């Protein structure tokens, strides 16, 4: 109970927002974007933060989910849930096949391979225009309905995304305290040491890669239905970089770090809109400054400061009583 206290507060806040501000643009429109980015950041954090494997191509799996939903429902008239399942199966197979050779690589080589994967998938979206509609994308996805209830308003979409997001966050928080979570942490700490302890590191890494890809893929499908439109621009190299930034900004390895990073980075464009042409420059500057001065991430730095102050206060109280 105590371990998840923070999570319950977060869940209540997320679910209260639409009740308090049902018509706010920030809840129904920005809120959905924030939830999308949170799931993506949390899924990337499983791979990068828990297992210590960098990926500069996470947007590819997000895009594959979105495009399989869009193409299969629009071009082939498939049922939305069936299309989503087909996407998940395709991404599971693809990511599993790629996971072994990719995750054998380390450091800069791993960065290069994942980056290459992201760019190849993006170019495919742009070039295979008989399926994907090319650079203009495709629109007109059918309405998604859950057990007969159509999700057809902004507010309903917010609920859908909020619940999906809360489930992913809970899952990510719990996995850290499971056997697989500890195996991941061991791989992160030292692969060789983990092997010595009997962890099948290749399998662990491959599982987390597939899992993180599938989570991104489902998010992509939901995103496509919610937006009612997909275009390659949403799944570019830059978006992969943004996702990495979210994870690192909040604090690598911390689920709530990823959540905070995703929230901040999703709100940033709304704030920077005022600065128009300065937006790109400010974004880059923020990224650099935080990484130089707080490499452990904003959330983790805040958490550490908080606990340090708390400890000092307890210490002082103990000194007084003795």
């Amino acid at each position, binding site marked *: 109970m105590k371990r998840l206290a923070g999570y319950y507060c977060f869940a209540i806040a997320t679910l209260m927002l639409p009740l308090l501000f049902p018509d706010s643009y920030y809840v129904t429109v920005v809120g959905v974007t924030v939830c999308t980015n949170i799931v993506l950041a949390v899924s990337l954090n499983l791979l990068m933060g828990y297992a210590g494997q960098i990926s500069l191509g996470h947007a590819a799996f997000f895009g594959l989910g979105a495009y399989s939903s869009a193409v299969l429902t629009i071009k082939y008239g498939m049922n939305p849930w069936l299309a989503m399942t087909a996407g998940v199966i395709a991404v599971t197979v693809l990511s599993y096949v790629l996971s072994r050779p990719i995750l054998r690589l380390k450091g800069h080589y791993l960065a290069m391979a994942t980056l290459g994967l992201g760019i190849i998938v993006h170019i495919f979206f742009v070039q295979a225009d008989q399926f994907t509609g090319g650079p203009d994308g495709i629109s007109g996805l059918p309405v998604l309905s859950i057990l007969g209830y159509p999700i057809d308003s902004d507010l309903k979409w917010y609920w859908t995304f909020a619940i999906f997001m809360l489930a992913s966050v809970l899952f990510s928080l719990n996995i850290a305290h499971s056997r697989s979570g500890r195996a991941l942490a061991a791989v992160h700490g030292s692969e*060789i040491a983990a092997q010595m302890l009997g962890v099948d590191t290749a399998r662990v890494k491959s599982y987390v890669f597939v899992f993180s890809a599938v989570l991104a893929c489902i998010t992509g499908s939901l995103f496509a239905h919610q937006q009612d439109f997909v275009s390659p621009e949403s799944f570019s190299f830059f978006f992969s970089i943004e996702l990495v930034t979210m994870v690192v900004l909040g604090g690598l390895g911390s689920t709530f770090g990823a959540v905070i990073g995703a929230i901040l980075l999703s709100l940033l464009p709304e704030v920077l809109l005022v600065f128009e042409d300065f937006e790109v420059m400010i974004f880059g500057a923020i990224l650099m400054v935080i990484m130089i001065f707080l490499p452990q991430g904003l959330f983790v730095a805040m958490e550490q400061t908080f606990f340090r102050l708390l400890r000092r206060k307890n210490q002082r109280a103990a000194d007084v009583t003795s």
Partner: protein
Amino acid sequence: MDQLLQFLISGLTVGSIYALVALGFSIIYNASDVVNFAQGEFVMIGAMSAIFLLKGGLPYPLAALCGISITVLVGLALDKLAIEPAKNATVVTTIIITIGASIFLRGVALLIWGKEIYGLPPFTGDKPITIGTATILPQNIWVMVGTAAAVLAVKYFFDKTIMGKAIMACSFNKKAAFLVGINVKQMLLISYGLSAALGASAGILIAPITFMSYGSGVMLGLKGFCAAILGGMGSSMGAVVGGLLLGLIETVGAGFISSGYKDAIAFFVIMLVLFIRPSGILGKAESDRV
């Protein structure tokens, strides 16, 4: 066969540019273990400053020289303001810092130069020279000759000069280099400057052929990274070979398969190479220290 000759010419031209960018990657990586994702921005800044100085009325050689100098200053600033303060940063952190730097530089370029596309006039005329059935532009020759000169200069610098040897010493072992009295910080600074100069030269050489805008550096930088990995990260001559090879593969691939997938071919090849031989063509296999 005739087509092949034409591919060879354009492949080597674009490959030369990749080689210069990759060489820049390699130098910084050797000196500081950092993969500088802002390398492509050096190319863009060099070309764009030269273009605007030329527009401002400076004579061509002077504009080119000033373009390179401005980029060198940017490179020095990058080391001093972003890399040096982040001591003991992990690989992921340095990757993000340099990505941040590249976004920042792109943002500044957008503010100064706007979104339009610009080009430089060719160095010496644009009358094509015919070889058999293939044609070659004077600028293609400039690119290849310029690259060859830059590569030889870099090789001479590292093999023959005290300063170059000092930088090599830093790349082997920083602590040992420090102990024999080498100013490690200064050597790092010089490698950033050198790498920026190479990037800027690449930009000025290629600007008459491909045109430039504030965002042109991204793909060039990534391709340079590809080339550096293809040749084996950290090996200077590997970077040059990797660059030329990547240019050729890309041009032939674009010619025979599809020009739309040109960039995808390059990345596909690099992934295959990584899967089969993770340490690159000329790179040494790494072993883990436990």
